[in-house]
C-alpha cells in the first residue's frame, strides 16, 4: 500500500468498526479528497458518515468539536496544512482546552488530518510544516507518520484517542519514501518494507519513536520526509548515524532520544519547517537539558530557512541530503 491507501484504510476500518466515527472536509465526500485519501469512503459508508463541507476550515473544526461533545469521533481533513490557520482559534482555544476547562465533562476526540511539507512545487501556500504551532498548545497531540505502516497504525490510534490529535501527513511521502534526491526517479512504497501494510486493525501507539537506523557516531532526530533525507545523508557520508523517527512529537518519546544521544554523544535535528521557534528548538532544549554531560558538540539544526517556502527555488529551500550530509561531516569534526 502507498501512504494514501494506508490512511484511507485506517479511516475505512474505523468507520466500519465504530458508528460514532465521521469523516468530512473540503472535497472529501463524493470526490474523495484532492489527494484521494477518502476516495470510495462515502460510497461505502454513506453520506451521513463521510461528506463534503463548505470551504470554511474554522467551521470544520468548530462543528467537529460540537460533534465530539455529543459523542461522535470526527476525523476531519484540512486540505493543506497551509489552510489550517483560519481554524487555529477553534483548535487552540477550544478543542485543546475543552477537557481541562470543563473538568472532563466535555472533550473533543477529534483527529485533524492535513498534508504538510514541500517538494511538489506548491509554493508558499501548499508546502508548510506548522507542527511547532501545535506542539506549543497544551492539550493537543501531534503526530507525523513517515510510512504507510505507521500511517495506518498511528491514524487508528489517533481516531481511538480521546484527545484532539493533529495528524500531519508529509505529502511528498504519499507515493514513496522520498529522500530529497528530486533529480532521481522516485521509488514507490511497494519497494519499501514499510509499504507492507496488514489489512486488519492494528495500533502504532502514540508517543513512541522508532529507531530507523542504529548507529554510534551521532543521533539524528527526524520525522516525516526528513527520515529518508537523513538516511540518504548517512549513507552518502558514511557517517554511522543513529536515526530516530519521532512519529509523535507530543507526547514525545524522550526515553528513546536520551538513550541514543547518551550513546552517540552528538545530536542533530532535521526538519522542513522554518528554523526559528520550530520544533527543533524544543528538541535542542530537551536534549541539552537531559544529555548535557554526554554531548561532545553543539546540537545542530538543519531545517527550512526562515523565509516563505519559495516556488521556483524549492530545492534550495528544502533541507536535502547535501545540506544534512555536510552538517554531519562538520559535526563529526567538532
Amino acid at each position, binding site marked *: 500500500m502507498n501512504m494514501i491507501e494506508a490512511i484511507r484504510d485506517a479511516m475505512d476500518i474505523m468507520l466500519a468498526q465504530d458508528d460514532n466515527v465521521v469523516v468530512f472536509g473540503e472535497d472529501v465526500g463524493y470526490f474523495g479528497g484532492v489527494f484521494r485519501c477518502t476516495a470510495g469512503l462515502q460510497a461505502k459508508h454513506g453520506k451521513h458518515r463521510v461528506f463534503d463541507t463548505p470551504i*470554511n476550515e474554522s467551521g470544520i473544526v468548530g*462543528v467537529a468539536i460540537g*460533534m465530539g461533545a455529543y459523542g461522535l469521533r470526527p476525523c476531519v481533513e484540512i486540505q493543506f496544512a497551509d489552510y489550517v490557520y483560519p481554524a487555529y482559534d*477553534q483548535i487552540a*482555544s*477550544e478543542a485543546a482546552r475543552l477537557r*481541562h476547562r470543563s473538568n472532563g465533562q*466535555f472533550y473533543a476526540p477529534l483527529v485533524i488530518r492535513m498534508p504538510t511539507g514541500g517538494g511538489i512545487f506548491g509554493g508558499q501556500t501548499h508546502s508548510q510544516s506548522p507542527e511547532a504551532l501545535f506542539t506549543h498548545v497544551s492539550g493537543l497531540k501531534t503526530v507525523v507518520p513517515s510510512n504507510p505502516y505507521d500511517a495506518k497504525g498511528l491514524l487508528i490510534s489517533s481516531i481511538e484517542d480521546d484527545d484532539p490529535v493533529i495528524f500531519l501527513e508529509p505529502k511528498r511521502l504519499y507515493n514513496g519514501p522520498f529522500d530529497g534526491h528530486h533529480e532521481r526517479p522516485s521509488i514507490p512504497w511497494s519497494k519499501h518494507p514499510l509499504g507492507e501494510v496488514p489489512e486488519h486493525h492494528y495500533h502504532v501507539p502514540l508517543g513512541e519513536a522508532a529507531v530507523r537506523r542504529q548507529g554510534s557516531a551521532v543521533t539524528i532526530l527526524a520525522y516525516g520526509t526528513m527520515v529518508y533525507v537523513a538516511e540518504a545523508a548517512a549513507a552518502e557520508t558514511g557517517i554511522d548515524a543513529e536515526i530516530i523517527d519521532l512519529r509523535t512529537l507530543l*507526547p514525545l518519546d524522550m526515553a528513546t532520544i536520551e538513550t541514543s544521544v547518551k550513546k552517540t554523544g552528538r545530536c542533530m535535528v532535521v526538519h522542513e519547517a522554518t528554523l526559528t521557534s520550530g520544533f527543533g528548538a524544543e528538541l535542542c532544549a530537551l536534549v541539552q537539558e537531559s544529555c548535557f554531560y554526554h554531548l561532545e558538540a553543539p546540537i545542530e539544526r538543519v531545517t527550512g530557512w526562515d523565509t516563505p517556502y519559495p516556488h521556483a527555488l524549492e530545492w534550495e529551500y528544502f533541507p536535502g541530503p547535501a545540506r544534512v550530509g555536510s552538517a554531519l561531516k562538520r559535526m563529526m569534526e567538532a
Partner: protein
Amino acid sequence: MAKAHSPIKLHVPEPAFRPGDTPDFSSLDIPAAGSVRRPPVHVSPEEIRDLAYSIIRVMDDAGAAVGPWDESLDSATAIRGLRYMMKTRVYDQRMVMAQRQGKTSFYMQCTGEEAVAVAQQMALEPGDMHFPTYRQQGLLIAAEHPLEEMACQIFSNPGDALQGRQLPVMYSFRESGFFSISGNLGTQYVQAVGWAMASAIKGDSKIAAGWIGEGATAENDFHSALLYASVYNPPVILNVVNNQWAISTFQGLAAGDSATFASRAHGYGLASLRVDGNDFLAVHAVSRWASARARSGFGPTLIEWVTYRVAAHSTSDDPSQYRPQGEASAWPLGDPVERLKQHLIGRGAWSEELHARAQEEIETEVRQAVRRAEALGTLNSGSKPSIKEMFEDVYKEMPPHLRKQRQQLGV
C-alpha cells in the same frame, strides 16, 4: 483621463446618546403587542423574511397577553418562570456583592435580560444542549441547577465542579444541558451547530441551542455557524441576544444600524424571527415554536431577542463612561420581571403580596445556598482546589512531560 471626484468620507457609526445626553428611544420602531402573525412551524424561510424586521410581542402595555403568539401559558408555569427570573436577579446581586467583598475576582450580571434564558430553558426538553455565553445564568436557574454549585464555581473553592480552573461565571454543567462556556466570543456558536448535526447524524431527536451577544455576531464564527446550519439543516436554535451594548460598543458597530441581526439569516436561507426579549410570554412561545420546528426536522431558526443590558458589562466595567445615565429606564421594552408580574396580577394569578413573599423566600434560598458555598472557601480565603488538579485533564491520561512538571512543582 482620470476624472475629478469629490473626496469620499469614512462613516464611523456613533450611538444616538453618550454621557450627558438624555436618552430617547422614541425612534425605535416597536409594533403593538399581538400585531405580528404566527406562521406554521414548517414555513419556508422565504415566506417569513418580514418577521426579521418586526418585533414579536405578546404582552401589551397593560400586561394583557394578546395575538397569535399568545399560547395561554398556564399560570403555574408562568409563575415558575417569574420566580426563576427573580432568583436569577437576586443571585446576580448577591454575587456582585461577593465580588466587592473580595470573595471572587470577577462577576457578570444579566439584569434586564432574565426572560430570554429563563423562558427558553423552560421551552426546551431535558437532553437538549445549550451552548451559552457568560450571560445565560438564567438557563441554569430555570433548569433548577443547585445554586450552591454555581456559587462554588464563582468562589473557585474546593466545591467548584471546575476545580477553580475557570474564570467565575464560565460554568459547565453537562447534566443540566449547559455546555462549558468559553471566554472566547462566538466560538461556541458553531459548536452548537456541530452538536445538532451529530444529533441528526445519529437520528436522535435532541436539539441544540447556540447563544451569542449582538456584539459577538461580528465574530467570524457567527458566519460559520449560519453557513453550516444552512447547508446541513440540523436541529439548532441560534439565539442572538441583542442587549444593545458590547462593553462600551453600541450595536451599530456590529452593523445593527444597517440591518437587524435577525435579518442576517436571510442570506443563508435560514428562518429567522425578531422578538421582544423582555416579554416572557413571547420568549417562551417563540422558543417553543423554534424548538418544535427543529425537532420536527424543519431545521434551524435564528432568533434576535431585543433587550437591554441594564447592568455594567462586568464587575470590571463602568458604563457611566460611555452611555448616558438613565438609558436603562428609558428603554421602551421595560423590565421582564416587572412585566410578567403585572401580567400575572392582571390575570388574577398573582399579587403584590405574593410577589413580596416570593422575593423574600428567594432571597433566603439564595443567601443560604451562597453561605453553604462560602463555607467551602472563597477565592481569597479558606481552601483552594488541589494544586495537583492543575495538571489533570489537560489530556485524558497525563503524559510524561506533564507528570515531570507536576513533580517539579512538588505536588
